């Protein structure tokens, strides 16, 4: 990880999203899909914790070399402040953070599923998988057209693009879950990647478990530090052999996890789990990516 003072090169407004392109060659050089950056908030405000954003684009070559792009939807004090930032201002940026996605070695047909603000990070993955000669099929959903991130880029990055909006303003009416079986069958998907809200990730996990499809998800958790210090962003994940589970940090061991090992019923439930848990009843997952 690097900490840099990065100049904003440009900002864009795309539907409900804002994108910021920053000059951060040290971070762009190291960034992989699934990883994120954190941005410091301004001094002297009542909001002060760093905000974290999945990396949407990291350019290492060409005219944009050394730049990094991330996207967000203003939804609170921090993101509203950031959405007012302008070109040539500077941000305090730490990144790349977290563990990114793994790429399949032998399998080629990848289905990438994104909902809402999960899309920017998934598009970065699509680009890297394409560069590795994989087939990428994209399934993108949101409540409404305004929240479908960069549909033209999505089209360019994929063999097929399927869009679902709940109000039918773009693509077909419905959710990504309504479409996932059909898209997976038509495109011969062998591996699934997903990012988005937890309920959607859980449904994707169930779908992949049922079809025995290897999968990886990127979770979007509240974090205080983003650099592994505070243990506020944990996700309960079963060990590979199913003997027990660990509360793993989304910012350090994640944000990418194997959904087959996430203990969905335990995650974010109010029931206190203060005692060490008996070693039984956890899923043992031996399929890739382990």
């Amino acid at each position, binding site marked *: *990880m690097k*900490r840099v003072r990065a100049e904003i090169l440009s900002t864009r407004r795309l539907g409900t999203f804002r994108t910021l392109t920053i000059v951060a060659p040290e971070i762009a050089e190291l960034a992989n899909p699934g990883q994120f950056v954190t941005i*410091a*908030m301004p001094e002297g405000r*009542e*909001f*002060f*914790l*760093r905000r974290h954003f999945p990396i949407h684009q990291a350019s290492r070559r060409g005219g944009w070399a050394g730049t990094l792009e991330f996207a967000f939807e203003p939804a609170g004090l921090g993101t509203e402040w950031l959405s007012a930032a302008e070109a040539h201002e500077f941000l*305090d940026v*730490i990144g790349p953070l977290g563990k990114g996605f793994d790429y399949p070695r032998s399998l080629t047909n990848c289905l990438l599923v994104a909902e809402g603000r999960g899309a920017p990070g998934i598009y970065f993955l699509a680009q890297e998988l394409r560069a590795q000669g994989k087939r990428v099929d994209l399934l993108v959903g949101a409540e409404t057209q305004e929240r479908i991130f960069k549909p033209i880029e999505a089209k360019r990055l994929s063999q097929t693009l399927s869009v679902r909006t709940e109000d039918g303003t773009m693509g077909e009416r419905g959710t990504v879950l309504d479409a996932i079986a059909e898209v997976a069958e038509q495109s011969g998907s062998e591996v699934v990647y997903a990012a988005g809200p937890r309920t959607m990730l859980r449904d994707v996990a169930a779908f992949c478990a049922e079809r025995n499809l290897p999968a990886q998800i990127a979770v979007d*958790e*509240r*974090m*205080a*530090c983003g*650099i*592994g*210090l*505070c*243990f*506020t*962003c*944990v*996700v309960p994940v079963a060990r590979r052999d199913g003997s027990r589970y660990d*509360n793993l940090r989304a910012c*350090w061991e994640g944000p990418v996890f194997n959904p087959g090992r996430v203990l969905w019923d*335990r*995650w*974010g*439930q*109010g*029931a*206190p*789990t*203060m*005692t*060490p*848990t008996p070693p039984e009843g956890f899923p043992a997952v031996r399929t890739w990516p382990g």
Partner: protein
Amino acid sequence: MSVDLSVDLAGVRFPTPVLVASGCFGTGAEAAELVDVSTLGGIVTRTITPLPEKGAPTPRLAETPSGMLSAVGLQNPGVEAFLGEDLPRLASFGVPIVVSVGGRTLDEFLAVASACARAPGVVALEAYLPSPDDERSGRSFSSRPDVAADVVASVARVSGLPVFAKLPGVGSELVETASACARAGAHGITLIDGVPGMSVDAERLASALGPVVGGLTGPAIRPIALRAVFEVTRALPGVPVMGVGGVRTGTDAVELLLAGAGAVQIGTAMLVDPSTPASVVDGIAGYLESKGLRSAADIQGRLRSSAAVPRS
């Protein structure tokens, strides 16, 4: 003129008066490249219990005005894994290590304390007394002076190490508890723990935190920490106090030192900016120079007319 930033808390020496507070340095593996360890007076580890602890259910975090509300629930790998993995890494930084000792019973405190007795790099223990006592239906150890004193005395005895008693900053028994801990052999007192707080997510009709109640930290609690340090050091002159609560700048630290602290700890600010200790140390040095003073100890408890403040 160069200033001497090292401090001596009744025999425990720290190279600077700025330590990292408990729970803000991960396992020691994470932020090393973002922190200038040469500026650290020491590192207080996350609170360690005898057995691995899963911690609190999520969500564990909510941001509140100038504050961070969090409930990690003492997630830690247990004392054995801590001594085998975390501690060698922390000790390799070459700064004094203070192990935060936790437990749900007196015996659990003792198990951790005795395991840390001769651990390399460990200069002191910090007894985390605000944690719930299972033998008294979950009321905290710090809620009764005699119980707190019992823990401190036992931890000091089995470890042979200086023990700082970490206490909450609110509650009418604050001075009484601090005094009982000091009489029982506490080397010093650490003030304050996160202030109990709550945040509600009206949209979901639910508490924002999984465990419902969390500890409020960050700039919002700095006045509470100042008052606690002031009251305790005034009542117990000669008992070293580490001040912790919302310190972000050199000025914040100087205020705590003036109120009576012998050193400060950086908590939430570490999470926002891991280089905070360096800037706080610079700020303290700059202040001392501007006042023509030579050492951090020169400003400790030097508030003017503090005697005129009525006893609460």
